[in-house]
């Protein structure tokens, strides 16, 4: 197949992403024309930008619906590959994007709405590109296309000190992580003589230590995106220093991008004995540390945002265990994708409920700020309750299946010694620790102390956002196959 044809095929498959990219660019440039007019009516601006972003996303969804399920392309040597992973990453992104745009409707920063929605749409376009990439170049470009709009977003939503700190910290560390990634993939290229991921993965079989080093360096770069220990330090500061919607976005979108990139880079069952004897222990140690440090530090927090940041770190640990199971071919990638879907529903649902307080002029930074919320905003409290029960992982919520599948993937492996069993038990005890701090939030909602939660502001977009999350969380428990 010649180059033109392969570009044509890729373009037709990437229609939804192209729609999003064009839409994002248009929305962003709209601000140039907007500036000239005297702006008094903030609300109509709000609705206009949010609606146009929503229309872009819906158009992209329609495009992906019309395109249908792409055939597995036999051509493995192009820049892109369209398989189940590409599709799943697209679906996960659209799910998160829909909820995030609805949440932004009432939480986007007043002066910079065009840039805000433009950057958000470009991130949403970039993650499926990461998911579809079949080449180091497209993988790296996709990842950078996620990062750069993120810097913009973090920079514009808040102009106080914490906001600037968050933006700067994220920018510096993310650039640093990208350097790691580049160094790693340059080793891979040097070793295999090709930037094509299929060729590189076929080269894993020759299993030299150098190969493992390259992979490890690249994984360091990705570990930053998924907030794995020891690359997690930015998370609490960034979560604290940004808007509630972006905190939700930061806990979810980079995770999807990072894990999809990991799946693309390593794949299932490609590692040789030599390479996996280096990489799997590293991943297991990293997963164990990520779970334990995330959960233990979350227990100590009174600040809700910081707690959610550490909880997001802890969930990365569970996901890394699922990823190890994937490498060993005990689980397929759907375990990761289902977990991420459930995570989207519960975490974004939680942030949407908090957004309702913020949009009404209240505070949701400290756990104590939520005291007695149930008696003032029952609908949001029920949404929050479902999200928290799901985060604990109790039945009747999607979070149960998410954890359960990871457990099965980890424990079912009977080939190796009891290491995987111990990892499972470790994860179980981590889930118990996590239940402690989630329960603290949950019981605060229903406490009968004096409540500072504001009354009487109803935001339809936020209500729709957390209703979608709550319904999905409960629905996915009864129909786990649809996750």
């Amino acid at each position, binding site marked *: 197949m010649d180059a033109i044809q392969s570009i044509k095929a890729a373009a037709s498959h990437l229609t939804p992403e192209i729609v999003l990219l064009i839409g994002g660019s248009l929305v962003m440039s709209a601000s140039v024309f907007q500036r000239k007019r005297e702006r008094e009516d903030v609300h109509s601006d709000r609705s206009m930008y949010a609606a146009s972003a929503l229309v872009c996303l819906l158009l992209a969804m329609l495009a992906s619906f019309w395109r249908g399920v792409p055939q597995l392309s036999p051509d493995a040597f192009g820049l892109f590959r369209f398989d189940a992973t590409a599709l799943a990453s697209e679906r996960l992104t659209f799910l998160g994007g829909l909820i995030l745009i609805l949440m932004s409707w009432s939480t986007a920063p007043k002066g910079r709405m065009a840039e805000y929605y433009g950057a958000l749409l470009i991130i949403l376009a970039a993650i499926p590109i990461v998911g579809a990439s079949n080449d180091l170049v497209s993988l790296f470009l996709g990842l950078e296309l996620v990062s750069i709009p993120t810097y913009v977003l973090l920079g514009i939503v808040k102009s106080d000190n914490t906001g600037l700190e968050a933006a700067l910290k994220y920018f510096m560390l993310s650039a640093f992580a990208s350097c790691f990634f580049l160094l790693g993939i340059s080793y891979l290229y040097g070793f295999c003589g090709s930037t094509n991921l299929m060729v590189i993965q076929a080269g894993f079989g020759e299993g030299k230590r150098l190969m493992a080093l390259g992979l490890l360096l690249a994984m360091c770069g990705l570990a930053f995106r998924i907030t794995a220990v020891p690359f997690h330090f930015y998370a609490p500061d960034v979560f604290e220093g940004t808007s509630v919607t972006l905190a939700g976005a930061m806990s979810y979108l980079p995770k999807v991008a990072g894990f999809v990139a990991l799946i693309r880079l390593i794949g299932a069952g490609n590692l040789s004995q030599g390479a996996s004897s280096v990489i799997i222990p590293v991943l297991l140690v990293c997963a164990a540390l990520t779970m334990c440090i995330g959960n233990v530090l979350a227990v100590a927090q009174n600040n809700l945002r910081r707690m959610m940041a550490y909880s997001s770190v802890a969930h990365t640990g569970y996901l890394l265990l699922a990823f190890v*199971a994937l490498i060993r*071919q*005990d*689980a*397929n*990638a*759907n*375990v990761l994708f*289902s977990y991420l879907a459930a995570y989207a529903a519960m975490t974004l649902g939680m942030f949407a409920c908090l957004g309702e307080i913020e949009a009404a002029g209240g505070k949701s930074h400290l756990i104590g700020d939520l005291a007695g919320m149930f008696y003032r905003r029952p609908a949001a409290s029920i949404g929050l309750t479902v999200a928290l*029960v799901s985060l*604990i*992982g*109790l*039945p*009747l919520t999607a979070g*149960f*299946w998410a954890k*359960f*599948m990871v*457990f*099965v*993937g980890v*424990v*079912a492996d*009977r080939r190796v010694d*009891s290491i995987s*069993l111990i990892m*499972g*038990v470790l994860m*179980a*005890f981590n*889930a*118990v620790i996590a*239940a*402690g701090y989630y*329960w*603290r939030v949950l*019981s605060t909602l*229903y*406490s009968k102390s004096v409540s500072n939660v504001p009354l009487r502001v109803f935001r339809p977009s936020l209500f729709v956002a957390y209703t979608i999350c709550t319904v999905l969380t409960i629905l996915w428990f009864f129909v*786990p*196959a649809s996750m």
Partner: protein
Amino acid sequence: MNILIPLLVLVPFAAALVIFSSGARAKAMVAFGVLAAFLTLLLSIGLVVQVHQAPLIENASGSIAPRVEFAPEALRIALPVSVGGQAIQWRLLFGADGISSLMVLLTGIVGFFTVWLASYQITNRTATYIGLLLASISMLMGVFLAMDLLSFYLFFEAVLIPLILLIQGWGNGEAPAASARRFLLFTLAGSIPMVIGLISLATSPVRYGHESTVSLPALSEIAATAMAGSTAVTSHDSWTVWLLLLGFGIKLAILPLHTWLPTTYAAAHPNTTSLVASVVAKLGLYGILRIVIPLTPAALSYEAQMVIGTLGAIVIVYGAMIALTKDNLRHVLAYSSLSHVGFITLGMMSMTKEGLGGAALQMFNHGLITAAMFWILSMLEERRGPISLASEDRGMASQYPKLAVLLVFFTLAGAGLPGLNGFVGELLTMSGMMRVCGTLVAIAVLGTVLGAWYGLKIVQRLLFGSNGQTVDLHNHPKGAMDLTQREWLPLVVVAFLCLYIGLFPMRTMKLFQPDTDRLATWVEPVSKQAHPKMDVLASNSGAQ
């Protein structure tokens, strides 16, 4: 395909949903809730009758053989995880044998009367309270009717959600919020690691060339064939059995893991506690009887049988001694419940016919007696506020003669008076253990003596003394009233059941004895193999 089984789970759950969504019309919903609980009780009686009439499965190839089943093809769970190279497709299965139908009956009886009493004992958000009670009854029914590991675990975990809300939201004792949190964390600390044990049980058939399955009858068959081959215990097996015992042990409050129990019982409303103590605390025991003993007999008997048995014997004495020192009646009853559960543990860990049969019977008996004691406690607290045994001069017998008679009756039933149900169960569990380890029985007997002691202490300090006229009652409007009809009905019904079982134990045993006997015939040889010196009595009598 038995239709009662799904109804038993769905009726109370649907009723709970209706109550939660009723909103402003909540007052009228109280009667609706009581009605739904009554319907559940009728359904559970119907199930017992059906199980009783169903033909016995004579030559089952495993130790678990449900007599009535509900297993539609559609109940399947497909997970994107592969075990031994095969994608997981688990079929869910519900059913009942004698043991589970007995527990269903217990849940039906205790559940209905708890809802009945709650309808006027709970004055604050009554309908919501009853809705949560119904939801927990539904989940409990689910646990007892599950015939596969997955739905067992699902219901086992799900029962936590309504319970924790009941304890936190309506607790009127010491620090309900902290106790609710402790209850949650303790239970999860057992049950989340337990899921790993359950998964490794579900995937164990892969070792013998079968597909992984969660169905209990199928797993028990595989365990039986595995036992016929070799009883060597791998490290994987011992991990499995200890993880399971951790989960179930915390639920049944085995000795070092019991500290959630007194705080929870002291914090929750006695009405909630009656359901927790009589049914929820049985979940751990039921899990051991249903999952640990039939599915991992070798690992259990080689590694854990004597450890858990000893802990059971110690907890009998420990619980009784602490109960003696406590003054708050809630604490006394909590520790006495702890102590009595020790007998059931002891019976199970004997892994003999008598022991297992006695344990199953005693689970039912103890459920009835404990529920009745906590009901009485709730009635007393309604009349007098918190009940302390510190002052000796109560004289309640002259004020509340009906209540006094029933309190004496249930105290004696709990202490194991011959002719009442507690005696039969405890005797059987002890005679089962006697064939394994006489020392443990000697310790346990000590516990019965102490049990009679604190039982009599309760009776003496509360009921007798002065004529009771000295007590200042003006803070308690109901303080001078004896039992109303609504109050004595549940107690009298349960008292008759206790008397009936005490007088005709064999009629009750007939329901589940084939099942416990079948279980014993599979597991007793393994346990004997693990403890070659056991059955001292049998070998002695053979020598003479």
